[in-house]
């Protein structure tokens, strides 16, 4: 009996082995290696890496660019997350209703999601271009003067945020649409009979019932607000003067343009810590408020 159970356990562990190996090799080892690297100086052929304790971290605290990209990232997250989620929900409700061109509307909302971010950035680059860009050409019809959207530090981050929302809302819409279709139409009818307005129904019934989806989408949106930097490569390269740079893009720059992997590791550790704290917060605090069916 005991023998059989040992064998059983061994079997279980063997089944887990491939996944465990991959996790170890591609998730845990790199994470730990990054953490370790952040305590060393960047080695070169002439100067080998040496343990420097918290020097990289103190450098970070004094690095103006770090504070700027961190602040940019906060603004980026504060705008992209709620707006793209709200927009996704609105679009989902709209295309879930009885609509003549339902599939066309659904497809056109989802289209941005299917395009690679690099392609999206190239499209928007020509939207934003002063004079010849779509936005300025439309604006000129109404007599609005041309504006250098990406060249102005006051508007560039906003431009980046708009693209991200445009890209993400359609993706999140799909999840909301799927969730909406599991809601029984009887619920809305029951509420209508009681005299509940559409807004009341949305606030008290639909939105609470969509909470599991919202949580899922929220986590994705938060992760993306730190992860989605592809368009920066095409559009602004973080400029002008870091006005549109985000944390991950800065990490890329430090690691591959400055070839300073030690400092890049330091920044990565901070990014990981921030994401971990947010994830824990979401699961611990929001989970209690979510109704799962």
């Amino acid at each position, binding site marked *: 009996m005991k023998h059989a159970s040992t064998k059983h356990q061994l079997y279980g562990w063997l089944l887990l082995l491939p996944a465990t190996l991959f996790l170890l090799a591609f998730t845990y080892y790199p994470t730990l290696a990054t953490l370790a690297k952040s305590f060393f100086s960047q080695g070169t052929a002439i100067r080998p890496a040496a343990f420097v304790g918290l020097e990289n971290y103190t450098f970070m605290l004094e690095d103006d660019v770090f504070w700027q990209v961190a602040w940019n990232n906060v603004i980026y997250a504060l705008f992209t997350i709620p707006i793209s989620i709200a927009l996704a929900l609105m679009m989902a409700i709209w295309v879930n209703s009885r609509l003549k061109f339902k599939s066309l509307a659904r497809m056109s909302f989802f289209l941005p999601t299917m395009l690679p971010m690099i392609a999206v950035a190239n499209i928007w680059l020509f939207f934003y271009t002063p004079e010849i860009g779509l936005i300025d050409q439309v604006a000129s019809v109404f007599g609005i003067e041309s504006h*250098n959207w*990406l*060249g*102005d530090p006051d508007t560039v981050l906003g431009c980046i945020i708009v693209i991200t929302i445009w890209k993400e809302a359609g993706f999140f819409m799909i999840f909301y649409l799927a969730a909406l279709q599991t809601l029984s139409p009887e619920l809305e009818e029951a509420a209508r009979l009681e005299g509940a307005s559409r807004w009341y129904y949305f606030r008290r019934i639909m939105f609470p019932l969509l909470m599991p989806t919202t949580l899922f989408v929220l986590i994705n949106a938060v992760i993306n607000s730190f992860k989605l930097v592809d368009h920066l490569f095409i559009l602004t390269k973080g400029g*002008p003067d870091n006005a549109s740079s985000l944390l991950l893009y800065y990490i890329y720059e430090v690691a591959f343009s400055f*070839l300073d992997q030690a400092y890049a590791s330091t920044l990565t550790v901070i990014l990981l810590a921030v994401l971990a704290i947010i994830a824990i917060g979401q699961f611990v605090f929001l989970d209690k408020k979510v109704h799962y069916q």
Partner: protein
Amino acid sequence: MLKTLKRKAGSLALATTLGLGVSTGIATGASAVELTMYYPVAVGGPLTNIVDGLVEDFEKENPDITVNAIYAGNYNDARIKALAALKSGEPAQTSVMFSIDTYELIEQGAIVAFDDVVETKEEKEWLNSFYPALMENGQTQGKTWGIPFQRSTIVMYYNKDAFRAAGLDPETPPATWDDLISAGKKLTKDGQWGAMIPSTGYPYWMFGALSMQNDQVLMNSDGNETYFDAPATIEALEFWKDLGTKHGIMPEGTIEWGTLRQNFLEGKTAMMWHSTGNLSVVKKNAKFDFGVAMLPAQKRRGTPTGGGNFYIFEKTSAEERKATMKLIRFLTEPKRTAEWSMKTGYLGTKPAAYATTEMKQYVADFPPAAVARDQLEFATAELSTYQNGRVRKLLDDAIQAALTGSKTPKEALEGAQKQADRLLKRYR
């Protein structure tokens, strides 16, 4: 079950070892030299075909040498991939990389100087056959580390039709900063700017031209000192900014590198400063009469060079170095250099290339092709220092901060200089 697993793992390991053994066996057995070359191609297509064709010709002439050309994205990607490959023990003997990567590559101990590779007198002469301006970026510590190949400079493209419409002589483009301003004012009207100098992507490069024209280089040849806060440098940036804010002949804020060519082709600007690399595209797509001119002068004419050099990696055998030299010399023969230049629009890297009959004919038919060459006389090295990525970014940020008005040119450049000093101190 465990037993079978173990046995399978064992046989797998055996197979791998055997496989390795076999492949190395073949490589040595043929006694041929196999070279791996990394090559940056930001956009695929024609450039890849041209390089492939050249490599094929080389292999035909040298049957004992095989060349694997690995295309690796833009300059940045090529450098990252080549360095990563070297680190992981993958063999690579040579690569075309950014001409300004020299210090970085030396610091990484990745490359050897050509002076240590050349042997014969003939080879030493070959080393001196290039335009000196194109050699600058590849030379430091009294040695040559990079051989110019895919090189460009900045030139001024201008719309001759727009010049005529504004009452300007289309055959005398602005030759000085003052000319640029006065011509720009005449050319600026509703829907058309006088001039555009791109300030995203590679602002430091464009700025290298402006500061040079004001007779000020941006760094020393040891790559451990910058002159960002020199009065002439600050003046140059003030001039750039004034084109937009004071003279109103250029849009304010930064100007996008990627869409500038389109702006010029659509007539939204009468003049643009851009890489010679755009010449063939502009030639093909311009629906108006256009001209190419040297950049205007303030105290003198000036432009930085740009583009890619050949490097030889340090971890190579004597035999491989010999074969690599053969390859590089083959690719830089005057005839081939001329062919390469005509097909791509990049510079012919040596005077002998322009002396070939084909090139003479081409320049006679299409004079703009000679402008870049003639300008080489005034050209200088592109910004290149130790800690190149960081130093470059300091300057880029300073330029953009000044152009967008968040700092004055003086503040911005002084700040950049202070930080650059901090970074470069330990290399002095």
